[in-house]
């Protein structure tokens, strides 16, 4: 199926600003889904609150737009009740790592089979540009008008430390690589995280004098790399890919053993 058939066209154009990277990430996600020919009815897409989390409304699956930071536990309920469904979480850097950080690390610990795509624009877009736990040190934001002195998470390290079994990073500027990283995440059985670098020209870009969407995309292209030898650049690729018993499988086995196969 053409990936565009997974869109809810009657909801487009979407609310995202011109040049917002979220649409690029969403496209990469849908192409990965299309390649796997996932049946729309068998997929649930769960999001929190944020510009990125609006993505759930645009895709033609069973979609759930929840509360800020809580996409993962909502998704947990779905996945455990319907282990046969593919459950995907579309979330933002703020949604996943600020208010939602606890759920993120616990789902990673459990190795619950969710594919979590973190639309990382290094800012809270929806609320107009406050810094997030992934805003780089000394960048600017509306709540960091003099520069942000918080240090950000390294999402790859955080996910790994919590027990995620698949962790990758992609970027809007490398849509094909992003699509692959997401695809591998979809294939992986267990908690899979894909950090997707996305540009927010409206707030992050403006606050940090990064210019237009074009210029921001160019910046990404120049400062992130798929090379295995990234040097100073932001590395893209798959950083964790390990096998560990998956949570719904464990639950199922456990139920079977206790209930005697029921």
């Amino acid at each position: 199926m053409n990936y565009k058939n997974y869109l809810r066209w009657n909801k487009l154009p979407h609310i995202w600003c011109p040049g917002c990277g979220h649409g690029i990430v969403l496209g990469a996600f849908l192409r990965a889904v299309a390649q796997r020919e996932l049946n729309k009815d068998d997929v649930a897409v769960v999001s929190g609150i944020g510009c990125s989390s609006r993505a759930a409304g645009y895709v033609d699956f069973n979609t759930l737009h929840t509360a800020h930071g809580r996409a993962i536990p909502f998704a947990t309920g779905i996945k455990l009740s319907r282990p046969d469904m593919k459950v995907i979480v579309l979330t933002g850097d703020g949604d996943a790592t600020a208010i939602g950080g606890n759920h993120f690390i616990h789902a990673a610990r459990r190795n619950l089979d969710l594919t979590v795509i973190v639309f990382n624009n290094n800012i809270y877009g929806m609320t107009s540009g406050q810094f997030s736990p992934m805003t780089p040190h000394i960048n600017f934001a509306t709540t960091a008008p003099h520069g942000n002195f918080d240090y950000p998470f390294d999402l790859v390290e955080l996910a790994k430390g919590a027990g995620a079994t698949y962790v990758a990073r992609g970027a809007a500027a490398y849509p094909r690589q992003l699509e692959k990283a997401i695809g591998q995440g979809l294939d992986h059985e267990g908690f899979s995280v894909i950090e997707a670098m996305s540009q927010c020209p409206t707030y992050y870009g403006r606050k940090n004098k990064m210019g237009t969407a074009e210029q921001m995309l160019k910046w990404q292209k120049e400062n992130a790399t798929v090379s295995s030898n990234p040097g100073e650049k932001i590395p893209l690729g798959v950083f964790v890919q390990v096998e560990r018993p998956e949570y719904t499988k464990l639950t199922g086995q456990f139920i079977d053993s206790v209930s005697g196969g029921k």
Partner: protein
Amino acid sequence: MAKQLVQGNEACVEAAIAAGVSFFAGYPITPSTEIAEKMAEKLPAKGKVFIQMEDEIASMAAIIGASLTGAKSMTATSGPGFSLMQENIGYAAMTEVPVVVVNVQRGGPSTGTPTLPSQGDMMQARWGTHGDHPVIALAPSSVQETYDLTFEAFNLSEKYMVPVVLLMDEIVGHMREGIELYKPEKIIDRRKPVQSPEEYLPYQTDDSLIPALAPFGQGYRYHVTGLIHDETGFPSNSPKVIEGLVERINKKIDKHADEIITYNSFDVDDADVVLLAYGSPVRSARQVQQAARQEGLKVGLVQMITVWPFPHKVLSQLYRQTEATFIVPELSLGQLADELSKSVPREKILRVNRNDGSLITPAQLDAVVREAVR
């Protein structure tokens, strides 16, 4: 059927299982913990899911997620956890996802007295989350009623597509009585969509004002959001849609209030004094009321089973009919009495409050009744 000696918290679990609960997510907290523990023991054996979440926020989120797949789902907590669940209780109310939330009340505010009973969360059960929202709350006063009402909570929740709070308290939760673990007669399941997936509008309702949400993953793909949404389920900022949705989800309960509200009344018709209680104070109230009647005193009792929606109509009618003095024993500073004062003049309400972690004794209540009938 032979009676079995069952703890209140356990009765809640047994009833939930009888009602068909298939998903429980929770986080331990005194005095509700036995509910999670029994669920952990019993659900897997039935092929159902128990999960201990990282906190109460996640527990509440998970049961909503599970319910959207069609599962009857439930969580159990106490004061501090109930406070944490408020945001997502509002989400369930807004998106009309049926769930059962058990609050085994302990002394508050804050950490308070974790092991002692209280009824201090009555108002919170109604108003704990932001915005105008609907909720149903039921309160058992015995182990048997805990069994009955847990069951009822699932039924009401599925029928009206609304979160239902079972307001227990430490006494009811921890006491053991002989009860019948009967197989319930009527299990209500949520409505099924009548339209085909193509024509389906998840939040379109008939006169009942109750939507028919299809379980996720059965061919009805739709969108669920905590934003104001129209019949399609998608967000809208249209004033008409906003007003319409906020009113409908609330009216859905108001409209059926007479059906929802249940209570037991004893000897009220000719009463000079009416005791009004719910939960464990009913026990003392019933003892005192019966004793008083035996002495020929015109004392009646209304036991509220449904706490929310509040039986204002019933009570104001009763007041107009009897002009009785209402005596309200409760384990709080007067939440029930205050609410009653919307229907019965303040000066006709006598408050019997106890906040020291003990029950109101029959003797304590009896003294007030005697004072009032004089």
